């Protein structure tokens, strides 16, 4: 009975692992193919089923001329995502701390309403804001620039930072603040000297979420940039619409998703804890 249960449990785990890993393994093997390895139907094992080649990977780094330049979009994606995430994290953490410790009032608007305003921004479908964003950035001359995208992404990411951090602060005992205040610290000092050093797990999770949603956004990058600035998802999807060489497509896809996948394994210990627990109550 127990043996059967264990068998079923590990089968389920392995089955789901295969489903999760399948697309990556397929992309990995495809990235070493040439057109012969593709047009004759699905093949999986190099040397045995097809002759592996490095063409798919080679074109990614051949700047200019032949091939797809993936270096510039990569750097652009890094700049935009990191800047927007950093700004969102700073502003979001400050706001979340304020909302969790003090009471604000402006007419009928109270803390709960402000919190709701922050978090509810996630409900906004990108398409609703795309046209005004386009015109707004055009008016400020920020269309097709990194700065323009950073501004847009801050609006996208800050709600996530507030959402994760507000709950994190709720779980830090208020006594910690009060002790510091009794010692004569002003609120700003209390925050930076006492609270912030204890925030690492929350900041890691909030930061990771910002990076995920920033790095992976396609729609705004697609709408608001054209030639001068091109982000990674737009560059890769552009390959899809032309005559598609599956090998370079696969190679570029793997290179694009690698950083966050690696990061996930690095910060694993923060993710598997109960930190996020009450974040959604």
């Amino acid at each position, binding site marked *: 009975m127990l043996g059967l249960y264990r068998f079923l449990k590990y089968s389920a785990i392995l089955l*789901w692992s295969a489903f*999760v890993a399948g697309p990556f393994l397929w992309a990995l093997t495809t990235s070493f193919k040439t057109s012969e390895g593709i047009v004759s139907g699905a093949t999986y094992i190099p040397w045995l089923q097809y002759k592996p080649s490095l063409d798919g990977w080679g074109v990614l780094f051949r700047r200019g001329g032949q091939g797809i330049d993936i270096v510039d979009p990569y750097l652009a994606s890094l700049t935009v995502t990191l800047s927007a995430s950093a700004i969102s994290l700073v502003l979001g953490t400050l706001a979340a701390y304020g909302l969790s410790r003090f009471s604000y009032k402006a007419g009928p608007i109270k803390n709960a309403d402000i919190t709701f305003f922050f978090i509810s921004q996630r409900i906004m479908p990108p*398409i609703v*804001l795309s046209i005004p964003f386009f015109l707004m950035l055009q008016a400020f001359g920020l269309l097709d620039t990194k700065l323009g995208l950073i501004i847009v992404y801050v609006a996208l990411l*800050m709600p996530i930072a507030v959402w994760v951090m507000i709950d994190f602060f709720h779980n830090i005992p208020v006594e910690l603040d009060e002790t510091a205040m009794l010692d004569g610290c002003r609120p700003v000092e209390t925050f930076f000297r006492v609270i912030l050093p204890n925030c690492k797990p929350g900041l890691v999770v909030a930061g990771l979420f910002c990076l995920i949603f920033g790095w992976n956004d396609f729609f705004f990058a697609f709408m608001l940039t054209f030639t001068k600035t091109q982000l990674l998802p737009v560059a890769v999807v552009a390959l899809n619409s032309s005559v598609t060489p599956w090998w370079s497509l696969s190679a570029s*896809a793997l290179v694009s998703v690698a950083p966050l996948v690696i990061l996930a394994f690095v910060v694993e210990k923060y993710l598997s804890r109960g930190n996020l627990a009450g974040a959604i109550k």
Partner: protein
Amino acid sequence: MLVSRQKLIFLLPGLLVLVAIIIFPLLFTIRVSFSSWDVMYPGLDWIGGKNYSRLFSDSRFWESLQRLAGIAVGTVVIEYLLGFGLALLVWKEVRYKRFFRVLFLVPMMTTPVIMSVIWRTIFHESLGPLNNILGFLGLGQVPWLSTAGMAVVSVMMVEIWQWTPFMFLLLLAGLLSLPKEPFQAAAIDGAGPFRTFFMVTFPLMAPISIGTLIIRLIEASKIMETVYVLTSGGPGTATETSSYYIYIRGLRDFQIGYAASLSVTYLVLMILALTILAKFLVRAFISKDKA
């Protein structure tokens, strides 16, 4: 006094930035929705509610909403069941527990459009691995992206692959934060695993379940990128979600005014639907709690 001034230092920067970035575009969209702005006459004239009366008889829009509701609710329910199941699997002692916990998260770390491009090659009817494997197992070939029904299934499959990890992450975090005492009490009462799950685990997880379901429903109500890459809304309009339809009207046909009215209607309906769903979920889970 000092405190009250200092507390604004925390809140105001973030709040003002967000209001500045979001509110003006939103107000602008509402204003544009009362204009006839299109590719021939770009400009803010005032045509009253004409766009809104037009969308009332635009069956393609209403069909896209129904389709979106079906796809969103369907995927989120499946994601919840799978995510909860997976979280339970790696909650207690399992070999290589930490490795599997991260592996299960990987899809949500990846870029949806980029993975959709890979999925498109997987779904390829003659050259893709999916039909190849089905053939190997002696099963028939499936026209994944070229028939209406299967195209919807394909889109849902990619969405489930991408976002079950998010459910899994929040539900696992919830499970790990549960108090130990109720489980000890259940063990003393001699409750088996099924009884323990339905009498202890599931009720304790009700608030977290409601939260994750609502968050995922919000995100799922925006589905469009997978559709854009996998099917472009087709075949016909079989996988056209509301966002994608608005995209076609606004940015392909350049009927900016009309697309704005669709956007406003879509947003209002989404908020209404999600509020009702949230109320419904709370009641469903709480009544189960008492039963």
